[in-house]
């Protein structure tokens, strides 16, 4: 059976600027793939290529075996754009009705789909109110619902939690988890690492138009940091500067008001560092031990420099 999404050597440039440079990806049935990358890395271009809104320079995309942009592919994709792509003057139900018709639904099937999406997004009791009166979180939920009316089997979610409060974000997570439970495949782009860690089965990190790493959360941490962990020391006086030389001599580095040591065998290495500090009367105020997470991986791979 064909994969929900297969992208092979995809390239796209705008003038001399390459937006995508040989991207290859696969998404399996029922899988949630997190697509992470700094601003301008190529995430949205990649998503727009999949929905057939961007002409490819080279490479191929197939959706359940059909080329991206073909009528068959369109019917299987649910595209939820980054922007609130709704008609503000129409009510929630009217918006869903409009996009349902555009997706080819009519009559009872349309009514059922609208009702079901209103329930799914938790907006059934506000269905007759104009969207322009909704909060940011409600608009985001409706924005998602509008892409799912025709029950697509591959959903492209482009930063669905941008600008929403924690409560709405939790609700959106629950909505995505419900999709996973129904066996739908999802490509989920986000800047929030905790979202990717919580929701995604697999993560692909894109930068400068290339996939620079992909795998499960654990895979990415292991391949980037091995078994290394991070020991952070804070000092009396809330400044690490006086101890920079001491730290550097022992393989550490300063980061803000802390000194960081990368350790691969935690017990003996921590003991050695603490003993050295005691011997030289370094006033350690507190100590924390951190295993690398997705954010560490992301920053390690994409760097700390500002992009845009």
């Amino acid at each position, binding site marked *: 059976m064909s994969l929900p999404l297969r992208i092979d050597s995809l390239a796209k440039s705008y003038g001399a600027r390459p937006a995508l440079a040989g991207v290859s990806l696969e998404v399996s049935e029922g899988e949630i793939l997190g697509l992470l990358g700094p601003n301008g890395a190529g995430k949205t271009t990649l998503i*727009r290529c999949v929905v057939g809104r961007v002409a490819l320079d080279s490479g191929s995309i197939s959706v359940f075996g059909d080329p991206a942009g073909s009528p068959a592919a369109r019917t299987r994709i649910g595209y939820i754009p980054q922007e609130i792509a709704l008609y503000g003057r129409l009510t929630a139900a009217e918006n869903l009705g409009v996009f349902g018709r555009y*997706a080819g639904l009519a009559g009872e099937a349309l009514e059922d789909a609208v009702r079901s999406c209103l329930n799914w997004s938790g907006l059934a009791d506000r269905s007759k109110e104009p969207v322009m009166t909704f909060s940011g979180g409600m608009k985001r939920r409706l924005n998602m619902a509008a892409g799912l009316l025709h029950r697509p089997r591959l959903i492209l979610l482009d930063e669905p939690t941008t600008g929403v409060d924690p409560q709405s974000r939790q609700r959106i997570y629950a909505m995505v988890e419900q999709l996973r439970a129904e066996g739908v495949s999802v490509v989920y782009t986000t800047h929030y690492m905790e979202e990717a860690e919580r929701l995604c089965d697999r993560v692909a990190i894109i930068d400068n138009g290339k996939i620079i790493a992909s795998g499960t959360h654990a895979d990415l941490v292991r391949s980037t940091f091995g078994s290394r962990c991070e020991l952070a020391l804070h000092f009396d006086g809330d400044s690490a500067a006086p101890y920079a030389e001491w730290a550097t001599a022992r393989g550490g580095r300063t980061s803000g008001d802390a000194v960081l040591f990368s350790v691969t065998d935690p017990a003996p290495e921590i003991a050695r560092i603490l003993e050295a500090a005691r011997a030289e009367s370094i006033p350690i105020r507190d100590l924390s031990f951190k295993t690398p997470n997705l954010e560490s991986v992301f920053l390690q791979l994409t760097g700390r420099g500002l992009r845009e």
Partner: protein
Amino acid sequence: MILSIIRTGFMNLRRDRGALTLSFIVPIAFFSIFAGIFGSRKGGTDAIQVAVVDLDQSPVSRRFVEALRAEGGLRVQTGPEQTKGAPSRPYDASSAEAAVRAGSLPVAVIVPKGFGDAPIAFGPAAGATKLQILNDSSDPIAPQVVYGLIQKSAMLSMPDAMAAEGMKYLDSASGGLTPDQRARIDHSMADLRARLEAEQKARAAGGAPAASATPLGGGLIPAEMRDVVGENKKNPLVAFYAAGIGVMFLLFSASAAGGAILDESESGTLDRILSSRVTMTKLLLGKLGYAALLGFTQLTVMFLWGALAFQVELFRHLGGFFIMASVTSLASAGLGLALASACKTRAQLSSLTTLVVLVMSALGGSMVPRFMMPEMLQKIGFLTFNAWAIDGFTKVFWREEPITHLWPQVLVLLSAAALFFAIARRLARRWETA
């Protein structure tokens, strides 16, 4: 601080092309158009086309027609403009009236039989034979000018008739002339006629024009003015203005309706729509249909109001109205869509629409009737569909022509709609795929 605010204003203006266009280009364009309409008349009002039918064919009437021909303010036509290979047939009373009804000419002058016997009337005009001036009241100026120039021509071309009529009046008013006085007058009149005949012969041989004849005395040619187009109408000119203003506002609303695609593009809704089953062609056709229906409704409401408040005879001309409102709405919708597709933002569209619609409306006769414009501008007006639409509505409501006569307007407006849609479709390719 105040200087900083002024500077900020200019910095913003410099980068706002829409505001710059509205501030400088639109006023200049308008100034140029109205200067063209009203300012290019170096010699005053343009010559008025007038059909002249001489039913009398007397020496006096011929002299009178000759004088009208020589009048610089008139362009006298005694027959329809000649077409290739077809000999020109002179106008008779009914064909001249038909020409005025059809809008080929604004005025016709019929010189009735017996005019030469009593062309002038001093005092009450009951005894004189009246000229007939047939006019189209959609141009209220032309018949008045023609009437005035008839008086002038009479003074220049028929001094003998005026003098004779004057003597008759004097004779009756003074209680009778003596035989001696009568003999002297007869002698003077004979001299005058001989001089006029000699002048006419000289003119025929290429001599001095009639306008150079010495004016003798003064008087009035009695004339009867008849509005042959609007005579049976309850409120004749309102339909004309309903069409002019209606078409102009139709263009504004069509552009606003077409502009929805820019909002959709900005909000991301267009991306969502085009990633569904809707193709760009279907989307544009839907928007064309919406704008055309909106325009049709707008025109219907406007004419209904005209019928209720100003006696526009909508219900007598429903067929013609339906045809003209449909094709005009379709053409405006096409233009609105083409303008929207050419712009990147609503602000840009608003500026472009203001410029295009106001210029088209000014040239096309929505603001100033085209008959008031110089001939060159009248011809340029045909490049706008306002002119075609107004002509069509005028045919329906003003000239009451059968709907089969609307085919040129229908053809042009449908072609315009197709052309504008094709342009919009071509320009919309930028939204299809990046």
